[in-house]
């Protein structure tokens, strides 16, 4: 029996569209998402741009409030009750790493001043010891010698180094859950794997859980224990990482798999026709939201959204094919 750390229970997020005289339109960014993250687990959330991945992360860190449903952290509702009052405590336990390392550090502050804050705000240590703690955290993420980095400004560091500072800042408060929103997509390919190794190492050492958001299935497979695939605001497939890749069920996951560069598979001349794009979330297609792009479309697909059902142990899929 594993401990559930985070639980999303029918979590739904709609954004209001502000348009003159048309006040009833909503962007349905997240619709009835049910997710669980266990302690010490890496769950990867995969999907195209605009599928609601980042919204999910932002709702969890309370950047956007939830429209309906519940989010439980350690069995406590984060929007009502304990964590609503003790929101600082929640923020200490759940931290986020953003996609753009160049944009998420204040360019006018030194690394020291950026990194000092989490320690002081959350009373991690006495002000005298901050320097020592900062150096220790920088060492942990592989920035050595740490003293040399503290007096630098963000523009003096490379993308990979900045992202490490971001990770160090998030790790400073010793969180239990880290939300990583495409942390490697702005980095060079040669640095990405280092970054992922570092994150896995920190997970082993401190037993943190991750929600790792990405659009790259290969990367998700490398880092994650379980993969959840999102399409147009709905969860379409979730299960153990290896099973999702080897025994793909949902047609959308198959599409993602095909689109990923796979030089190891040889040089196929096979072309895909991917002219359609993700549908508008203001007026999503009726029924299964993927049906306009689906190869295996059946008559019932445009009538009702299929239910999530368990196909194998722990492997759920939302599709009429099964």
């Amino acid at each position, binding site marked *: 029996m594993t401990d559930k750390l985070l639980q999303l229970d029918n979590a739904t997020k709609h954004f209001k569209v502000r348009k003159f005289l048309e006040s009833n339109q909503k962007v349905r960014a997240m619709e009835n998402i049910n997710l669980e993250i266990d302690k010490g687990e890496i769950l990867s959330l995969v999907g195209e741009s605009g599928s609601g991945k980042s919204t999910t992360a932002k709702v969890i860190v309370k950047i956007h409030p939830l429209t309906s449903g519940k989010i439980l952290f350690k069995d406590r509702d984060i929007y009502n009750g304990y964590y609503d009052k003790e929101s600082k405590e929640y923020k200490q336990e759940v931290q986020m790493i953003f996609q753009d390392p160049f944009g998420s550090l204040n360019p006018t502050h030194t690394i020291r001043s950026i990194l000092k804050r989490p320690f002081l705000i959350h009373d991690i240590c006495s002000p005298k010891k901050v320097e020592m703690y900062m150096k220790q955290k920088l060492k942990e993420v592989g920035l050595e010698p740490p003293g040399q980095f503290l007096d630098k400004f963000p523009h003096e560091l490379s993308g990979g180094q900045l992202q490490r500072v971001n990770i160090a800042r998030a790790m400073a408060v010793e969180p239990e859950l880290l939300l990583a929103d495409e942390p490697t997509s702005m980095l060079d390919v040669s640095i990405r794997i280092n970054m992922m190794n570092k994150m896995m190492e920190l997970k082993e050492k401190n037993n943190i859980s991750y929600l790792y958001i990405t659009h790259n299935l290969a*990367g998700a497979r490398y880092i994650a224990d379980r993969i959840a695939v999102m399409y147009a605001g709905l969860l379409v497939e979730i299960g153990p990482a290896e099973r999702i890749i080897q025994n793909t069920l949902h047609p959308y996951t198959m599409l993602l798999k*095909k689109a990923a560069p796979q030089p190891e598979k040889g040089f196929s001349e096979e072309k*895909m026709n991917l002219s359609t794009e993700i549908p508008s979330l203001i007026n999503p297609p009726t029924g299964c939201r993927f049906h306009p792009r689906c190869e295996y479309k059946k008559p019932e697909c445009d009538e009702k959204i299929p239910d999530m059902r368990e196909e194998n142990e722990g492997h759920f899929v939302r599709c009429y094919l099964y």
Partner: protein
Amino acid sequence: MEESLLKVNSLEAGYETQKGNIVAVNNVSFNLKKGEFLGVAGESGCGKSTLAYSIMRLLEDNGHIFSGEIIYKNKDLVRMGKNEVKKTRWSEISMVFQSAMNALNPVLSIKAQLLDVMKAHSDSFDKSEAVKKAKNLLELVNINPERLNDYPHQLSGGMKQRIIIAMAMALDPEIIILDEPTTALDVVVQRNIIEQIDGLSEKFGFSIIFITHDLSLLVEITDRLAIMYAGKIVELGKAKEIYQNPLHPYTKGLMNSFPPLTGEIEISSGIPGKPPDFLSLPPGCNFQSRCDYSMDKCKNEEPELSNCKGEERFVSCYWVEEECCDDG
């Protein structure tokens, strides 16, 4: 032997800074054949973009081509006057810039921007012809021609990217240089765009220089690959051969730095260290400090790009010379 369309001979280009000259492209030579799809790969800061801007003659004010030549159709682009360059640019060689999402002017319609390109680099269009051409271009990249009057914010990232590609094709150039055209896009859109580029190149016969740091993309689609490191080409050859048997240690490192989707997962470490500073390049081989196979010789002498294993395979590495090329 096919005739080469573009010939770059020992090109040296870079930037003047207060701390000294940075030679970001160092002694680079290659040929581009008609209709060929050449990939250029390397980490950030290895001189890929400087190479592209040199060919376009679009280097910043402090950027210079120090020596070498770029021969296009028997003319040397390096020695061409400004006005002459303007005539070749876009009508013969065009470019898709990095972060194309921001390359469109947000306050002008797509139509105005496409017409601008045609007006600036060619005299042969009157207005109605130009509009017709613009509509054709949009159809080529699978965008409804009715979107012509749209503004950039009304289009998705993938569509903007395709508009930029349409713009590069506006004057039927012979060569299109793509500088990281898909970096900010997600995998599905990326695949879509690359297939379109490939299809259009087959249809119209233009050559492509495709610059990216994501080697996994290149090996599938390009004919030939050039791997750049610290301003130099360290390996050049057919994409398939390089993928199946990477020779230079740097290429090996790049190959190991993306996890596979199928097959076994190996925990790999990527490439340790970081690219050298252009202002203080180490003596000998530039890659030596990050290299697992480094020898004494590597610390002092610089290897040259030399032929290895077949006609079209070039590598610059002493280790490869000793280990792999002796038998031949």
